[in-house]
């Protein structure tokens, strides 16, 4: 059983692919996924339902990290191994979790921001941050990572922060408005690639060229990789398939009673134009 937070998110869809890959390769495995639509309550329902259906292991990408506690409690009560993927719960919650596969979201924000610092190379940076749906773990941590880095540099100023809801169209509209109100903006940092592409389209509309703006996203989706170098300046790769496949594998082992490592880190990797082909290849 694998309750998932959202089927509407592009990055997640590659994670699902990883899980499905594992599923297809092992004939003695059947993985069922559900969509919580980013609704924690729905996710709890899904967990209940899976436990009722008698699954051997739970593989969960939580909607937010606070939800892990009740999920762990339920899993423990039912004596079912629990693997958390992608979103790292706090320590007290981790006590009751059997394994974690993924990375620290804050890391993505830090890598992203550091790449911006590098590209600015001491020049004045006026930054707009596009955030995902407020309250989501990735939105909170990535933004936090961004700010952590930027606050150390006196040549960098955050001019605006707005909620782009992970959505390309919404980001497009916001960046249009921001560029109008703050022509001085020369860096746009987006919590994900879809919003970064929206920002890029808005910049093009405003007549700005690649040289005028630094735009950076997170996820390294194929779409984003296509835009890399032609407007998008960097993105951060987090192996979705790797997390999915790895998570499934660990859950499989736990279900069979094998011992596994508790923390399984999958690191973020910065992707610049040079690595475009290499990463595009990963999606083939």
């Amino acid at each position, binding site marked *: 059983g694998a309750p998932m937070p959202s*089927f509407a998110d592009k990055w997640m869809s590659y994670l699902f692919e990883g899980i499905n890959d594992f599923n297809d390769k092992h004939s003695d495995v059947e993985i*069922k*996924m*559900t*969509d919580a*639509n*980013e*609704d*924690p*309550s729905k996710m*709890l*329902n*899904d967990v*209940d*339902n*899976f436990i*009722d*259906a008698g699954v051997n292991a739970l593989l969960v990408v939580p*909607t*937010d*990290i*606070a*939800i892990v*506690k*009740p999920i762990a*409690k339920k899993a423990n009560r039912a004596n079912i191994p629990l693997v958390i993927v992608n979103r790292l719960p706090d320590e*007290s919650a981790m006590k009751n979790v059997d394994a974690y596969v993924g990375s620290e979201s804050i890391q993505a924000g830090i890598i992203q921001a550091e790449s911006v610092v590098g590209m600015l190379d001491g020049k004045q940076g006026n930054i707009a941050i596009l955030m995902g*749906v*407020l*309250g*989501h773990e990735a*939105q*909170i941590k990535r933004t936090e990572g961004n700010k952590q880095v930027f606050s150390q540099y006196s040549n960098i100023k955050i001019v605006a922060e707005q909620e782009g809801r992970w959505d390309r169209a919404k980001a497009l509209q916001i960046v249009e408005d921001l560029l109008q109100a703050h022509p001085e903006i020369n860096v746009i940092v987006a919590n994900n690639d879809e919003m970064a592409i929206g920002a890029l389209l808005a910049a093009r509309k405003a007549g700005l060229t690649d040289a005028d703006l630094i735009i950076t996203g997170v996820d390294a989706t194929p779409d984003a990789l296509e835009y890399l170098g032609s407007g998008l300046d960097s993105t951060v790769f987090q192996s979705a398939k790797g997390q999915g496949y790895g998570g499934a594998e660990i859950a499989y082992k736990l279900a069979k009673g094998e011992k596994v490592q508790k923390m399984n880190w999958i690191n973020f990797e910065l992707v610049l134009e040079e690595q475009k082909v290499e990463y595009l290849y990963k999606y083939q």
Partner: protein
Amino acid sequence: MIKEASANARKTHYTEILNKYGMLLILILLFSALSLKIDGFASFRNIFSILEQVSMFGIIAIGVTFAIVTGGIDLSSGAVVALASVVGASIVTGTEGYGMTIFAFGAAMFVGSICGLINGSITAYGRIPPFIATLGMMTMARGVAQLVSNGRPIDASSDAFTSIGDGSIFGVPGLVVIYVLVAITCHIMMSRMSFGRHVFAIGGNVNTAKICGVNVEITLLKVYILAGALAGLAGAMLTSRAYAGNPTFGNMWELDAIAAAVIGGTSLAGGVGSVPMCIVGALIIGVMNKGLNMLGVDPYWQQIIKGMIIIGAVLLDAQKRKKA
């Protein structure tokens, strides 16, 4: 002629029963079908689990039913859940004991009531369609929830507090107990108290209600406060179940709640509705959700099937009534 008349009377009787219990029939059919397909679907455990899952938006649906019976609507309930959850969580976080738990539940309901009071005042005194008033409140309440929580989930893992969502009394989950209590209270309010009578009268014909001396404004105010308080209660329940308050909670719940009310036969034109049937409507949605998940239906298809079942159930009901 005499025979015909009595045949007619009997026919009316059938019609009435179908009108009243048609949806219950559909619920039973749905449940039976799924029980045949899925092992253990018809177990007590599973039924309680369905009830638990339904309890929160089911409670909202009861409040919404009141609003709809007056001819209004409440779109803000999902956002109020979020606000109440955040408020409840901030009160309870790091505390222990049932005193704070009760206080947190009370505060959540109070915050909900305030939202309801605003909805109600705008609707009753400002003469703004409740659709717009509560749509505005929906945006505002979520904004305030994010402001209060700074956009982050707030931990609510006080043992006493979470025991409400986790615990059970004589095997009945705590949330289900609350649901049942709320349902009984609201059913009595709606069907046996003059407040309920006035709610129906307003939905049936506002002008007549006014002429008969019903205080339309106050009644509407009470209705929206009730709906708000119940949404707040649901928010507290969710917080206790999820061990956290979160400004993203309750997203789109208002639509599920309205769907539950309407599937239960509440007329959006006002004047018709009941608490028991609203529960039946909520259960149809709950059973359907549980069944689709347990059958392992692809989530994309789940959405499509859900849409079809909602429309289908209401269609079936309408058709049957027409024929009868």
